[in-house]
């Protein structure tokens, strides 16, 4: 699936969120959020660690306070490993703290995964290396026992090949959509964890004309000021940046 298709697929998952926040180095989630904003109108986007378009005036900690207050509806997280129970591992593999493979670290995941009502897990690579039966180390748990303060869980897992939905009650993913060129079998073969398959398993739709027009117009312009390299690669013809 094209990156534009992926962006459009993620954008469709964002409503009814009214305030989405995005961490560092997340161009596809950022573009998806700008697209959702163009489609839905009333969506506030808070970009962490960006010089432009940064609404935080109380330092880089403000995002986490906002999340703790329940003022952020949706966040994006990735993972060096993601398992079938929704656990994510940003630490590494092998003896702690990652003597075999070391990932960068947990960032805000151990906190924000439990504070926001909905998280979209996003990882472009869809392989048995990434989507594992059980993560080597848990940066942030997919579910929590009763009594532990938690506002939400993974809502969906989006990869370069498919889209899953997550059930916190069952701590289990359901495959709901495969991207063009993939099949139920190809996803099963590439996925290290067990999961259910939705009755109406769909193919992820290609972007509509309207979505493409918005992506190549206002979304490209917004992205150019925030992720210039990414925007220049996807939309070399896009108009100059608009002020964020």
């Amino acid at each position: 699936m094209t990156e534009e298709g992926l962006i459009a697929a993620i954008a469709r998952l964002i409503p009814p969120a009214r305030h989405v926040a995005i961490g560092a180095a997340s161009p596809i989630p950022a573009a998806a959020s700008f697209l959702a904003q163009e489609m839905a109108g009333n969506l506030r986007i808070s970009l962490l660690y960006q010089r432009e378009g940064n609404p935080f005036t109380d330092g880089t900690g403000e995002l986490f306070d906002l999340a703790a207050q329940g003022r952020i509806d949706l966040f994006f997280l990735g993972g060096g490993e993601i398992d079938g129970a929704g656990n994510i591992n940003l630490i590494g593999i092998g003896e702690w703290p990652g003597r075999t493979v070391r990932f960068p670290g947990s960032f805000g995941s151990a906190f924000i995964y439990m504070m926001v009502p909905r998280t979209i897990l996003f990882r472009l690579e869809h392989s048995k290396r990434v989507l594992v039966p059980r993560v080597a180390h848990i940066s942030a748990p997919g579910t929590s026992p009763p009594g532990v303060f938690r506002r939400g869980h993974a809502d969906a897992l989006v990869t370069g090949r498919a889209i899953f939905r997550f059930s916190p009650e069952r701590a289990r993913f359901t495959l709901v959509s495969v991207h063009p060129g993939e099949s139920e079998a190809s996803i099963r073969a590439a996925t290290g964890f067990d999961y259910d398959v939705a009755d109406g398993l769909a193919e992820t739709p290609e972007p509509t004309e309207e979505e493409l027009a918005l992506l190549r117009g206002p979304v490209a312009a917004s992205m150019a000021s925030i992720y210039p390299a990414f925007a220049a690669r996807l939309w070399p013809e896009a108009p100059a940046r608009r002020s964020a």
Partner: protein
Amino acid sequence: MRLVDLETLAGMLPAGAMLAIPPDNSATPSSFARALVRADVRGLRLVGVPVSDYATDLLIGAGCVAEVQSSAVSLDEAGPAPCFTRAIKAGTLRMKDATCPAMHSMLEAAAKAIPFIPIRGILGSDLLAHRPDWLVIDNPFAKDDPIVLLPALAPDFAVFHAVMADREGNVWVGRHRELAVMAHAARRTFVTVERVIDRDLLADAHLAAGTISGAYIEAVAIAERGTWPGGLTGEYPDDAAHLAEYAALARTEEGFRAYLARYVHKRPAKRPAEAAE
């Protein structure tokens, strides 16, 4: 406040010090980090506020670092932090993994001089098992509500780069309030700046709102383009090409040595970026 030169400032940092530095998206003191490498300061315990980047990786590669406490160490778009990753795999670096809001909260607790502060989340993360200094208690204000308590974290030193200081040592950091928290939390704070101005930052209502009082600042050094290869908001952009070059060179020990020789120990005249360094 003392106004000193960059090499003097680096020399004021004792071996073994616990040193808090912000990442590039805030105001990473890259020139200062290079000066620490030149001064061969050893045994540093680095604190990422709340994450760590080029400056931390460089200091690790140069053998200056005994311990890192951070939520993540990476070069962002330029990929993983090579020296950090190598040191973790080799087991030569003590790593205290954390999560961003915990780093902020531990520093905020130190800034308020309270011994601990609660934080939501984290329960169920393997971070907890590896942080014996993080406790879980029952919230005394509720029933059956386990919650994590973090200890205050007061670094020996906070060092960051900023656009400008005035003659009283007041430093303008704009919206980067985390730098104020660092300065309040740390026992001593050093700052590198693009320039020192003659007017009083606290006398201008607009500038004062983004200024840290000189009461917290022990010494200031001018380091032009002091976050390079990071950018500085409103001043200059990231040097993505240089970060990519660093990432490529630092992938091997030999490459990293070449990088040090080319960009840290020898300061090329043709790089006006760091004339002051």
